[in-house]
């Protein structure tokens, strides 16, 4: 099955140097106390100040064209930045979606005006995006979306509601998938469009959805007669579904599907070494081996993506295996180093353990549940 044959990728010396540069920066920031390490930081650790620092280093939108303030560097460089940020558990939630999805989407489908308006701000770490996809009754069945955009003079009037919108309370804009023509049972994914909604517009109400930890990452976004001007439609009207899909492979196989609980693993190994617990280190070594193997997959996919190959199947597999791994880390570690996990513990290990356990259920739900992914893969394998 050709689609499963992933290549070895070796980082060049230059890339290793770059990694070192990123790491040194993070170590210095950590020492200054700019941030604490958190598990699952890409979902939960917001810092506009930190995002702006990264922007100033040129590390947001690093692959974007120079003409819009980007650095036209390879997606491998972006991969390196992402890895280092997650391994350090740095606060990257503010700019996360703008860097990963919205920026690339606008560059691919946006108008020149949109690129000139948004991209330079994204790159500076000053302009944040949310993704408006899920709705209260859609679950994993996104084709059943009900938010509508009705054509009016000079723009669109949007009505509806989005839910599970990460970071909407921090973001400036939301790329919103809306129904621009009525649902057609024969083409369930047709008639949808992507609109950029300014979250400060009249008619937008953002309400927090408290996470089970009590924290606030997710939101409900109510859209009541929100006017979106014509120049804020992304790409083609009616082509929203297909446009949204193009970035999925990259989203599914990135380091964020493997490393959400890595800070816990690293801290645990440090403690096991301190205790000279050989049997404990043996169990940890198996986790490291798994991580290494998944990382090899993920980097292999990144290399193929750089060559514009179709990697949908393998990318979905990375997400499926990676998410299970992220959960599994906490389940193994808690037995090697028993402790009372606590959200606000001074003890870093107890805190990371708590974060990893409490965020765990989200890993296999966000970005397509395990069940949905396995359906996609099952079909992909059969038809390959």
């Amino acid at each position, binding site marked *: 099955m050709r689609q*499963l044959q992933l290549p070895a990728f070796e980082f060049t010396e230059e890339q290793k140097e770059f990694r070192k540069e990123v*790491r040194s920066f993070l170590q210095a920031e950590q020492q200054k106390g700019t941030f604490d*390490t958190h598990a699952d930081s890409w979902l939960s650790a917001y810092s506009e100040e930190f995002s702006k620092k990264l922007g100033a280093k040129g590390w947001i939108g690093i692959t974007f064209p120079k003409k819009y303030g980007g650095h036209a560097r390879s997606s491998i460089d972006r991969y390196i930045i992402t890895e280092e940020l997650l391994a350090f558990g740095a606060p990257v939630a503010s700019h996360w979606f703008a860097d990963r999805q919205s920026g690339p989407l606008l560059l691919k489908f946006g108008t020149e005006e949109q690129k000139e308006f948004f991209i330079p701000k994204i790159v500076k770490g000053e302009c944040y995006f949310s993704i408006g996809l899920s709705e209260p009754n859609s679950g994993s069945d996104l084709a059943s979306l009900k938010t509508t955009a009705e054509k009016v003079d000079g723009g669109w009037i949007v009505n509806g509601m989005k839910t599970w919108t990460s970071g909407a309370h921090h973001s400036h804009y939301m790329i919103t998938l809306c129904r621009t023509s009525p649902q057609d049972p024969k083409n369930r994914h047709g008639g949808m469009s992507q609109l950029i909604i300014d979250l400060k517009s009249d008619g937008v109400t953002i309400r927090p959805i408290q996470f089970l930890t009590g924290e606030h990452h997710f939101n409900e976004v109510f859209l009541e007669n929100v006017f979106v001007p014509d120049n804020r439609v992304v790409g083609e009207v009616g082509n929203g579904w297909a446009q949204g899909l193009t970035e999925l492979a990259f989203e599914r196989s990135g380091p964020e599907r493997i490393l959400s609980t890595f*800070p816990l693993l*690293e801290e645990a190994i440090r403690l096991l070494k301190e205790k000279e617990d050989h049997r404990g280190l043996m169990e940890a070594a*198996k986790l490291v081996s798994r991580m290494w193997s998944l990382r090899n997959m993920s980097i292999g996919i990144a290399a193929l993506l750089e060559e514009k190959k179709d990697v949908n199947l393998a990318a979905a*597999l990375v997400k499926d295996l990676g998410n299970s791994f992220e959960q599994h880390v906490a389940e193994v570690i808690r037995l090697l180093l028993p402790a009372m996990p606590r959200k606000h513990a001074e003890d870093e290990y107890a805190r990371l353990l708590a974060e990893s356990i409490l965020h765990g259920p989200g890993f296999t739900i966000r970005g397509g549940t395990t069940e949905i992914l396995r359906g996609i893969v099952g079909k992909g394998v059969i038809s390959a």
Partner: protein
Amino acid sequence: MSEMKSFIEDTAGKILKDLSTKEQRERFEEGEWASSLWKTIQESGLTLLGIEEEKGGVGGDDEDVFAILRVVGKYAAPVPLAEVIYANQFLATHEGEVEDKLRVVHFAEESSSVHSPYKLRNVPYGRYIDEVIVIQQEGQQASYSIVNVLAGEIEKNDNLAAEPRDNLTFSNLGETKKLDLSFKEALEDYTKFLALSRVAMMTGAMENVLALSTFYAKERQQFGRPLHKFQAIQHHLTAMAGEVAAAYATLAVASASYSSDLGKEHVAMAKIELSANANVVAKAAHQLHAGIGMTYEHELHHFTRRLWAWREEAGNETYWADQLASLYQSREETIWESITHVKGEEAHAGSTV
């Protein structure tokens, strides 16, 4: 990776697909040596892979060798190709040239007294090979002797996949030559090679298990629908596909770095991974095939039994995790530094100061 890789991969694929058939494997299990298969492999030069032409080899590098061994696993070929390649490479290195024979390297147990016979346990294909290169401990160093198998006694013994792992006994081992390696170094080198060989072979076997499962899920109906329409079956297929993709990526990285400084650590992680996931694949495939996959008649077990056998050979997860634990304990760097091969300025990435 040498340029010939995809060419020899294709060549080997054709040979093995044609000759390592289910019938051939069954005849082998009944006690018949796969002579024409072996002859064709030899004639194609695969046994001399990774050896320079001036030493009697056909060229090629580590990646070529392990790429071919993946194909061997894919067709569950009942031949000791990994072991023979290693033996030939060994002779090319230590004798300067090599003539192609059916031979394997094996290690004598430590310090038998002069009069007791030498016992070699679990020699791959012991009953079918011509020669064993026996490596022995001699003081701080190792020595080797080349022994004709006919000179010894053979006690037959099989692994779970009915591959011969025979016990050989020799009254003496003849002339020995010194090696410029310690016994431990020699053993570690062989174990490393064999471990990555098994990784490659397991990758191939997993690939075929997935292919058999996919075929069955398309063909077979239950409750009036094709099997692959059932969510549970899709989950089994996903589990297998995931491990096949992971195995590919793992094998690719570990064979590319095999001879580098990272070689041993990568082989350790690769063997842990493949051994741990062998049964994920085997179990899902058997569950998907239900009864039919438990019959001798269906060829699924040719692959799943090999997965079960190979995961224990050349060190299972416990063996290699033990090695890695000692390595972690012995060095200062963090795991993130080891994984990325980049050392930061401070000791603890991912940890507060």
